[in-house]
Every structure is written in C-alpha cells, then in structure tokens.
C-alpha cells in the first residue's frame, strides 16, 4: 500500500548565545531593518498620514425669505429700483423703492425630508418708460450639514446679470454649490458662519452696500455660490407688464472635504505600515533562518527535546 504524507509539523530548534554576542547584535540589527524600513517606505511614498478626506452629503438648505433686489434701469430713466425684506434698507431708498410681488416655493422631490430646489418668482412692476437692463439679487439661505461635523451657516446666493437690450424676464436655473477654502473638521459643531449675511437690523447704508456685503462674505472659509453660467434674458415686455425674475435654485449633493480625525488617520497609517511590514517580516525570517542554520554567526543549536526526555537533559 502506498503511503501518503497526511500530516507534518515543524520541529523547533533554538540557538543559544550570550546577549553581547555577534548573534544578538545580528538579531538586533535584523529587527531594526525589519521594522523601520516599512515605515520609511510607507512614509516616503506619500499619503501616510491622511490629511484630507471627503464624503458626500446633501445639505439641509432652507430659503430664509430674505431678498435684496437692485434693478438697474435703462438709458433714458437712468438709475435703479431697489427693494429688500429689510425695512431699514427700504427706508433708505426713498423714491427708488419699488415693492415687487414675490412668490417662493421649496420642493422636496424625493421625499427624503430635505428640500431639493427653490422656485423663486419676483414680479417687479414697472412704468412704461422704465426698462430693466440689469439685476442684482441676493437671496439668503440657512445651510446645514450633519454627517461629520455639524455645520450651521447662513449663506447667500448672489445673482448679477445684465443684458444690453431691455428685458421682460430673467430666467435662472442653477445650483447652490458649496465652496470650501479649507476642509471642515471631522466632528463637533461648526457655527462660525451662523451669522446673517446682511445685517438687517442696521440703520446704516454702509451695511447694505453690495460691495461691503460681498467683501464680508468672501472673507469666509465656507461659502455658497449660485452656479448658473448662463442666465437667460427674455426681451419684449408689454408696456404695463412687470419685469419678472424667475429662478430655480437646486440644492445638489455636495462632496465635502474634511480633516480626518485621529483614529481615521492612525487606521490608514497602520494599514499601510502592516501591509509593507508583512513582506519584510517574511524576508527577514528567511534570512535569519539561513544565518542561524548555516552558523554564519556562532551559536549553540539546541533541539527542543520531546517531553519524555526532559529528565535526561536534567541528568546530563
């Protein structure tokens, strides 16, 4: 009957030498060369410490029903018309105040509890001699993120558009995009920018100056911008018809970059380190076996004796 190898196990052999011997020095050196180079390889090949990571989230955006409108009028009646939801601003306008009809509606298309788009319609009544050539419009939103850090901020969508021919309607269809100058933190509450974009309680004209508002807004590290490359101007207004701004602003899913926390950083570093270390461990194990088996460094080999022979060793 032919015999097959059904089972095998390695026999352990130990090598004895003093602590200050060449063999001990070799082992120390081998250990250093096993554990340190993987660290260098992982570190030098970049991305060892995860500095920045990203996740996707649809923000919770609500329109705050704050509007600031400046309509730039045509050549013959030069000047502008203005209106806002801030009484102090309206008081400052005098004759140039023109109250429009505003209707807004926020829509949750996929029924997930987060609004997906805003329908904004503004009808600015005009006299037959007035022609709108340009529009500056600020809408403010409350913007929230939840998944990693809780970000609460008040942001704005600034729309500025003009057309050489007097328009009857301005159609805007764009996304409210998040702009980050720095990554968010990975946890905690971030309410740095939970301050209103326009200081509606201020009686001073300076606080409603568009350059001032935009300059203060751009100082922020996290902002939102209305991303609509091509606002559409429709021309041919009837004499007594109002000028209409028709805006559809979507709140898309954003890719948000954030700074990973300690454990996430350590986890990725550990994964990289250990996967390279395994190769080094295997190689140096082979080298050590070679060195000791061939007595390249002087040691006394001791084969571990079976349990029954323990007394014999004691006797000798």
């Amino acid at each position, binding site marked *: 009957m032919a015999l097959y190898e059904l089972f095998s196990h390695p026999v352990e052999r130990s090598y004895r030498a003093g602590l200050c011997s060449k063999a001990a020095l070799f082992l120390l050196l081998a250990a250093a060369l096993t554990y340190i180079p993987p660290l260098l390889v992982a570190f*030098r090949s970049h991305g060892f410490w995860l500095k920045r990571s990203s996740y996707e989230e649809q923000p919770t955006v609500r329109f705050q029903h704050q509007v600031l409108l400046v309509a730039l009028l045509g050549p013959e009646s030069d000047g502008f018309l203005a209106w806002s939801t801030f009484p102090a601003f309206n008081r400052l306008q005098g004759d140039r105040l023109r109250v429009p009809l505003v209707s807004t509606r926020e829509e949750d298309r996929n029924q997930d509890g987060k609004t997906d788009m805003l329908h904004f319609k503004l009808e600015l009544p005009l006299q037959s001699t007035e022609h709108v050539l340009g529009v500056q419009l600020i809408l403010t939103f409350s913007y929230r993120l939840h998944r990693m850090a809780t970000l609460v901020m008040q942001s704005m969508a600034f729309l500025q558009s003009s057309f050489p021919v007097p328009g009857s309607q301005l159609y805007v269809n764009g996304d409210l995009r998040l702009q980050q100058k720095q990554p968010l933190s990975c946890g905690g509450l971030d309410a740095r920018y939970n301050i209103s974009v326009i200081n509606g309680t201020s009686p001073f004209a300076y606080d409603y100056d568009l350059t001032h508002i935009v300059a203060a807004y751009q100082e922020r590290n996290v902002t939102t911008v209305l991303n609509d490359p091509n606002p559409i101007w429709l021309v041919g207004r009837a004499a007594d018809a109002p000028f209409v701004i028709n805006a559809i602003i979507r709140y898309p899913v954003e890719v948000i970059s954030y700074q990973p926390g300690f454990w996430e950083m350590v986890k990725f570093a550990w994964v990289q380190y250990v996967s390279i270390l395994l190769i080094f461990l295997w190689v140096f194990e082979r080298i050590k076996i070679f060195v000791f088996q061939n007595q*390249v460094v002087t040691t006394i080999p001791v084969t571990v004796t079976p349990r029954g022979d323990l007394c014999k060793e004691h006797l000798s």
Partner: protein
Amino acid sequence: MGRVSGLVPSRFLTLLAHLVVVITLFWSRDSNIQACLPLTFTPEEYDKQDIQLVAALSVTLGLFAVELAGFLSGVSMFNSTQSLISIGAHCSASVALSFFIFERWECTTYWYIFVFCSALPAVTEMALFVTVFGLKKKPF
C-alpha cells in the same frame, strides 16, 4: 572553511549590483543635482553641487576597490561576519540608490547612503586587512 555555501556568491552579486548602480549614477546625476538646487540657479551653484556628488561617487568607487581587493584576495572571502555586513550594506545601497535615481532624491541624501552602505563595510574591511596582515591572524 567555506562551510556557508550561499554567502560568497551573494556577496559578490550585491557588490556588483551596487557597483553597477553607482556607475549608472555617473550618467544620470543631472536630475538629482537639480533636485537639491532652487528653481533658479547659477551655473556656479550647479557646478558646486555637481563636484560634490562626483567626488562622493569617486570615493565610493575607491572604497569598492578596497572591498573587492579584500574580497577577491581572500582576506575576507570566508569571514562570515564581514560577508553579512557587506551583503546587508550593499543590498540596501542598491535598493536605496535605485530609489535615488528613479525618485530624483536630493543629491545630499547620497551622503547618508554613502556613510552607511559604502563606508561602513569598507571600514570593517580595512580593519580586517589590519588584523590579517598586521596582527598576522587567520582571515576567518
């Protein structure tokens, strides 16, 4: 006393591997020199770094001569400790220098590679020369 069969050929091979990389470096040292210079540099600055690197490479070649002489003459051919040091050092040198060329490391890093991977085995080799020829000991 050549009881360890693998040591001598592997030492020879790692020595040669290191030698080949060093000779290759003579031709492709340009990018390494540029890596340790600022974006705009004068020809004088370039020449200064170039001369430093060429000097280091030439000294390396000299140390190779020492080590190969000791190895081939039999002074250290069967000395297992020297073989281990030499294999370890030249093996790491070949790996490090190939990274040095491919990743365009700064030319100053060559000095670290030089100290640990060329000078160290050469120094032990010279110590062996002294013990063998000066103190008249057996080479293994």
